[in-house]
């Protein structure tokens, strides 16, 4: 082969590697970008007057005077709409029966669309469901609802060879030459005055309990549940893992038993997480009846088994990284083995152990499969510490799954789903960044 070709191949080869790494970085960006971009939208967004109403009615946030001052102009801007509806009702009454008929369904549809945008009309009986008591609370939802008010959507299946096509027609066409015709232009032009959007930082999203299955409010119980589960898992996994690592590094003599134990550890590390979940169900709940139903305790125990191999390995690595000289120094001063471990080796290995612990904490926080059968429920109140022994809890990972697959209004609460994913990912990444920084500092210390 020509030298040039060989060089070209060589460059292509290096290029492939760089591209592979580029793809990896790109994948990271592509996955994180929507999560971060839309996830922050759960916290910072343009809220409408309806959001402020929810906050005031349900959580008592804001003063009555200010909310009234906020409401009054919106109500005033909405009044012409209701006036037009009233005028049209009067118009209908004067029509002959036959002319009246075709308007029946369109009017009902229109009223429903209006209700979704504005909330119930003044004077109407308060609906039972909280979600029906308010209109669109977010500006982005408002625009979608406005679209639904202005246009009707129909699927056109006339071409049998292709998939159906969505056709939009202006709703105003249904009300040509009636007193409702100007309504659509009016709403379209005055939507800002009607909904009064305002940039809001809803930080309470992190702490609020949700109302009406996540249509309103925040993710407080989920965050709390995840914290409980994670901390619980660490309470069991850290002592067990560190003790096992100490035994394997400092006490055990390399031999059959130890290599057997090591194989067990690596097998444990390879067990699929869903199998941990089944084991938790079969053992903790169905065999030893650690609690009557699913509980945070059972979930924590299951998670702790899952992260145990990680904790053991990280601690082993950290202990082995402690210079042998420390151990020799301690022993030469007359310290016993146990004392050496406690006073010299563990303190020196602590940062390394902590790094591993923090990383496995991130893992425990994000795992879903093990808690499905052992700890997680989709709706629940925040638990008191004592209740964790016997009660299940909502948790971020499970609720992410639940809200985006099984919720009855999946599209309505995209922002909540994104907010949850964002919170979970931020939590895990913060833990990992903390660990990465800490490890960099340790290696610097060991090198210099």
């Amino acid at each position, binding site marked *: 082969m020509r030298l040039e*070709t060989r060089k070209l191949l060589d460059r292509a080869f290096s290029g492939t590697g*760089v591209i*592979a*790494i580029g793809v990896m970085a790109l994948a990271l960006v592509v996955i994180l970008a929507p999560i971060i971009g839309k996830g922050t939208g759960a916290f910072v967004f343009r809220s409408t007057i309806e959001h402020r109403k929810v906050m005031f009615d349900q959580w008592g946030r804001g003063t009555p005077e200010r909310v009234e001052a906020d409401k009054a102009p919106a109500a005033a801007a909405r009044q012409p709409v209701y006036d037009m509806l009233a005028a049209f009702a009067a118009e209908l009454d004067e029509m002959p029966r036959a002319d009246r008929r075709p308007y029946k369904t369109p009017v009902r549809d229109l009223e429903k669309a209006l209700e979704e945008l504005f909330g119930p009309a003044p004077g109407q009986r308060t609906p039972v469901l909280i979600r029906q008591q308010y209109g669109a609370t977010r500006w982005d939802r408002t625009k979608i609802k406005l679209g639904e008010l202005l246009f009707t959507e129909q699927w056109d299946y006339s071409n049998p060879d292709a998939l159906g096509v969505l056709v939009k027609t202006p709703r105003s066409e249904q009300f040509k030459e009636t007193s409702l015709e100007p309504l659509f232009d009016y709403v379209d032009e005055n939507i800002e005055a009607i909904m009064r959007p305002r940039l809001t930082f809803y930080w309470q999203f992190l702490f609020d309990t949700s109302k009406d299955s996540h249509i309103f409010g925040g993710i407080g119980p989920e965050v709390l549940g995840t914290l409980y589960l994670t901390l619980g898992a660490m309470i069991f996994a850290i002592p067990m893992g560190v003790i096992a690592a100490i035994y394997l590094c400092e006490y055990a003599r390399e031999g059959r038993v130890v290599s057997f*134990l090591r194989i067990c550890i690596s*097998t444990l590390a390879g067990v699929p997480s869903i199998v941990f*979940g089944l084991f938790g169900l079969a053992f903790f709940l169905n065999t030893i009846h650690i609690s009557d139903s699913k509980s945070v305790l059972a979930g924590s125990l299951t998670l702790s088994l899952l992260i145990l191999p990680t904790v053991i390995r990280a601690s082993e690595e950290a202990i082995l990284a402690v210079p042998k000289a420390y151990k020799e120094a301690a022993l030469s001063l007359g310290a016993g083995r146990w004392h050496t471990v406690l006073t010299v080796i563990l303190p020196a290995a602590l940062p390394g152990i902590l790094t591993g612990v923090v990383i496995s904490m991130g893992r425990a926080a994000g795992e879903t499969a093990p808690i499905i059968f052992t700890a997680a429920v989709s709706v629940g109140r925040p638990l008191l510490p004592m209740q964790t022994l016997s009660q299940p809890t909502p948790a971020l990972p499970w609720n*992410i799954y639940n809200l985006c697959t099984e919720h009855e209004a999946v599209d309505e609460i995209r922002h909540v789903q994104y907010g949850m994913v964002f919170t979970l990912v931020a939590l895990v990444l913060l833990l990992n960044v903390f660990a990465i920084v800490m490890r960099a500092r340790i290696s610097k210390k060991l090198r210099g």
Partner: protein
Amino acid sequence: MLENSSTIQKRSLVMSKSTSRWRQLWAALGQGFLFSVTSLSTLTVFFIFYFIAKDAFPFFKLEGFKEFFTSTHWYPSGHPAEFGAMSIFFGTGLVTLGAVVVAVPLGVAAAVCLSDVLPFNVRQIVKPVIEILAAIPSVAYGFFALVVFAPLLQNNGGAVLSIGAWLILAPILALLVVVLSDLIADRCPDAARKVVRWGCGLALGAAALTGMILLGNHLRGIEIISGANALNVSIILGIMALPTVVSVSEDALQACGRELREGSYALGATRAETIVKTVLPASVSGILAAVILGVMRAIGETMVVWMASGNAARIPEPWFNMLQPVRTLTATIAGDMGEADHVTGSARFHVLFAMAFCLLTFSFVMNLASEAIVRRSRKKLGK
């Protein structure tokens, strides 16, 4: 003379019998405690095996083995219930295979790049990227697959496919054209060589280009019925398995040592030739172990497949059609337990444990295999 030792009462070197016995007792107790905690935490794996098996065997006793492993009819709620898990095994295999196809070439290329191409400080930046990729919770990947990626595939499936094909194939084909024309030219007499090289290059290039355009157009015409399908899941699982593959194979590549590489460079080999001809063969077992670990990661993953695989328990037609929904073992366990839970004790409950038992056995065997491979390669390298 020896003031120091004479003023202080000397410690006796010899322990009294009772002290020595106490010491021994304490040491034995302490060590026993450490040992029991260690074995408790490691032998958990046997607990897991036992309790999964305990609930799995009633299923085989009730329904036998044949239907489970050979039939594709999966109607656990039907009357009579049917428990043919063939298609579910197949779905698991298909998405795992897809994930391997995504993760292994990318992962090995990235590992080579990390160990042999990039300078140290760039590596320090890339490593955290891999770690973060590994740290993102699986449910977040699943969310991405379901909420972002699936609609994208569903709405612009053809375009996505053809762009993907172009991105992957175009550089490979270009390279192939250059090398082929070069090889052909090498066989010609000196005078004609240049002409032949250009001629061949142009001809082959034109052929490749038309092929690409045809393929691209064909792909663009494809409509994807549902974005939640095997392709979607395979790509996401591949990305999830990447960090494992990269870090394990990088370790394997680094374990080969500098001498091997320097020997090859000294003979005038380029970097690519050195790596392909000497480094990769020497570290092939380590890379194999990396692939196995990647496979385990993909097979054991639950949330992504549950959320974005479509969960249809049938074998796609034709079997390699990645654009159809599939169902995997993990997703079945996760999804069906909710309904089976009320009828604890029935075959419907136990069949899920039977599936878990299969998963567990598989991962155990894979794990032993990778351990054995790593150990053997270590011996070979003399470490």
